[in-house]
């Protein structure tokens, strides 16, 4: 297991290194001169050059990358135009937000985590539960209702469902407050009530897909020989379904869930936009719109970190669920 873990961690490190290089090079590849945002009005070529020099943008790219990475691990001095000393992990200075990128990320990450994690728990419980129930009650009214639910959810868009929820529960019935973010540590009730609509919208859409997948996986597993054998051995239904069939059926779902949660943590742009909540996704969108290159790089990096970590967790879960993975 330790060897497996070490191999995976090495692979994660290499992936993150590659992503850091690509996101760093993106800074130069984008059709936006990074100095224009730092240059005052009536900026002429001479002044642009002066700003470029001050920012160290004329240094060799390898040196600039080394300085960027140094900032992440030990911090660095960004100069007076960029707020001076930037403590580790320093991801640069956002001249759109007029603060260190890490300050912005420190503020928006908890928001995105607060949206995605409870929503993921909801959609997994609801989706997998509904899929299993549907498979076990195949052909019944419950099955048909579950299929109808998943079909509806899978064919909807978040911006529509979100707007509908807002219209009904916030603007018409006025029973749910306007979506907002409060730290769970400050006021757990306010935290939940401010995000509940986002959770419901995400859970409804995602659970629909998981319900269909879970149903299909479960039906396939239930027709396997080992399930028939378990039944023939006289095992209780609960044991056959819960311990044998569910465990086998859930493996592909874990992969998809890992990718979905990882991607969602990288930025739930549409959710955050629909509900007007400022998380990582919206921050990334604003960064792109405002040409805030240090912020774009940081959000790309963070999103990649989430996906890579989610994949690592999936691998570990695989190892826990399937003994063959541990052996290999």
């Amino acid at each position, binding site marked *: 297991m330790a060897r497996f873990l070490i191999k995976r961690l090495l692979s994660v490190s290499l992936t993150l290194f590659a992503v850091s290089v690509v996101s760093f090079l993106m800074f130069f590849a984008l059709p936006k001169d990074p100095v224009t945002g*730092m240059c005052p009005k009536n900026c002429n070529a001479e002044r642009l050059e002066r*700003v470029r020099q001050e920012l160290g943008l004329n240094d060799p790219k390898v040196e600039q990358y080394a300085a960027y990475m140094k900032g992440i691990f030990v911090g660095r001095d960004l100069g007076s135009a960029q707020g*001076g000393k930037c403590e580790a992990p320093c991801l640069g200075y956002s001249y759109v937000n*007029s603060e260190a990128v890490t300050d912005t990320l420190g503020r928006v990450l908890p928001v995105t985590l607060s949206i995605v994690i409870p929503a993921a728990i909801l959609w997994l419980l609801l989706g997998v539960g509904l899929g299993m129930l549907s498979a076990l009650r195949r052909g019944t009214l419950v099955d048909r209702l579950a299929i109808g639910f998943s079909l509806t959810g899978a064919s909807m868009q978040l911006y529509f469902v979100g707007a509908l929820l*807002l219209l009904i529960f916030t*603007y018409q019935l006025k029973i749910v407050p*306007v979506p907002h973010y409060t730290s769970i540590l400050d006021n757990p009730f306010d935290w939940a009530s401010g995000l509940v609509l986002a959770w419901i919208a995400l859970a409804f859409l995602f659970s629909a897909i998981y319900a269909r997948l879970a149903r299909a996986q479960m039906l396939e597993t239930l027709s396997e020989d080992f399930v028939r054998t378990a039944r023939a051995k006289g095992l209780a239904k609960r044991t056959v379904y819960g311990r044998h069939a569910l465990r086998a059926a859930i493996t592909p779902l874990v992969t998809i869930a890992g990718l979905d949660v990882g991607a969602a943590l990288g930025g739930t742009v549409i959710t955050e936009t629909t509900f*007007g909540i400022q998380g990582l996704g919206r921050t990334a969108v604003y960064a792109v719109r405002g040409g805030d290159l240090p912020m774009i790089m940081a959000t790309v990096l963070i999103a990649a970190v989430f996906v890579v970590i989610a994949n690592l967790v999936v691998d570990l879960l695989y190892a826990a669920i399937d003994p063959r993975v541990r052996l290999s």
Partner: protein
Amino acid sequence: MRMKVAAAAALVLVVSAACSKTTEDGEEVDQTRTATGVIATDPKDSLGPAAEVPGATKGGTFTVIRENKISHLDPQRVYSFAGLMNAPLYARSLTAFKDDGKGKLTLVGDLAETPGTNVNKDCKVWEFKVKDGVKFEDGSPITSKEIAYGIARSFDPDLTGGPTYVQEWLADTADYDTKWNFKANKASLPPGLTTPDAKTIKFEFAKPRCDLPFALSLPSSAPLPPAKDTGVNLDNQPFSSGPYKITKHTPGVELVMERNEHWDAKTDPVRHQYPDKFVWSFGPDPDAGANRVIADTGGDAAALAFNGVPSALVSKVEGDAALKGRTITSPTPSAWRLTINTQRVTDLSIRQALNYAIDRQGLITVYGGTTVASPLTTLMPPATIGYKEYDAYPAGATGNPEKAKEVLAGKAPELVLGIGDDSTELGTQLKTNLEKAGFKITVRTIPADAKLDETKKKDNPWDIWLDQWAADWPSGAAILPVLFDGRSIKAEGNSNTSYFNNDAINTEFDRVLAMDPSAQASEWSKIDEKIMKEQAPAVPLFVEVAYYVHGSKAGGVFISSVFGYPAFVNAYVKQ
């Protein structure tokens, strides 16, 4: 000067000619109101307190909902419309506009006792006396030293984003930061700026700068004690000299301002301190922001949606009787014109024919229907001080193709129309419209985000295109010379996008610019008409009209006659 890009069209803009809307107080707002303004000569005009707002009460929290954060809060860096409307709450300037919300503007002294003394009557030396009793949020007095320091720090190239008029005028060059280095001379002042004593601040320029009192109404002349200067970090936590101080700021999420107990109403002729708090709530998109205000629940009952009424909600808002008293409509100073590249279109008769041919009504319809904008036949918008309405080429609301053909006298000019790729439907309308009058129009699209820069290049390949201009203060000086003085034409970054250069007009500009600002107003209107009648370097099209909705408990908000956005100096929460 700010040339607003098409994003400004996110505001829903309502019309028009003789149309008017009813406000919460049942008062009629003329959407084509014109600005009448003066520079206060009586020091009493600059004294506080500001006249009480009828029905205003103290207390409560006034909320402003906006999608994006305010780009800068540091007064020396404030230049966005949201920033300019918010800054007066926490930053005082040397001068300020007293605005009745109906077009009557008076430039008064804010921190200064008067809007300035033109010492030698040549606009080269200006003197301002600081009022007694003006204080920062910590109770320390505001003197000429702190005001001068505020102006000096605007020379710091690190502090990007703000206006650069005063710096450029003092340094007598656009590269002002090469003439005086703020960081190396923090204990001194830029050339031409002196503080003979704690009450006096003096500006000396190499050339006449008659617009100085107007330029000093921008927040960039706000004071700051050197000890409170945190450089770029001041942007998130400015030090207040106004009626409110910033008590909490989470960029992109929330800005909370509470009463500054050291602000003295008796020193302030333009601001009030009615609400206990002002809160800017950032995040909701324009639809969500307007919906929150329309729902009118909780704190949103005392809120205003700063992004305006989105087009999707216009019919709902207009059709809802309950919202009648909760909307504000007003023309903005943002004027659209069809720019004619006079380097390429050298034949005056062609330029005049374009003016006869233009179908303003058709263009407004395509721009957003009959509730989008108000037609304009002058170069300066009606919100300009001294504005005089005229129509140099009377052709009716839909244009007169026959008259245009007559002026063209058999010619069939071939013109290239440059149009942003986000507004191709306007290009199609213009092509259809102008071809009826005998023009042959070739439409060339330009990437929307590059259009502004590309059309500002002197050797661009287009004959006509759409332009938009909103001046920083409602004076012809901030419009006509900027847009039509040919001596300022350079290779790139031109504001004179007609590339119009006429010696007689340039001489006129010089003559009027050298006049005392209070005497300039009517002269600019004359030049406006002269340019159009004799040279026609553009086709005036329309001004945008703003449309806002607020909660049932929000009161006192009016549309600034200077910027065309909601002003909060009179805002209150109905109890």
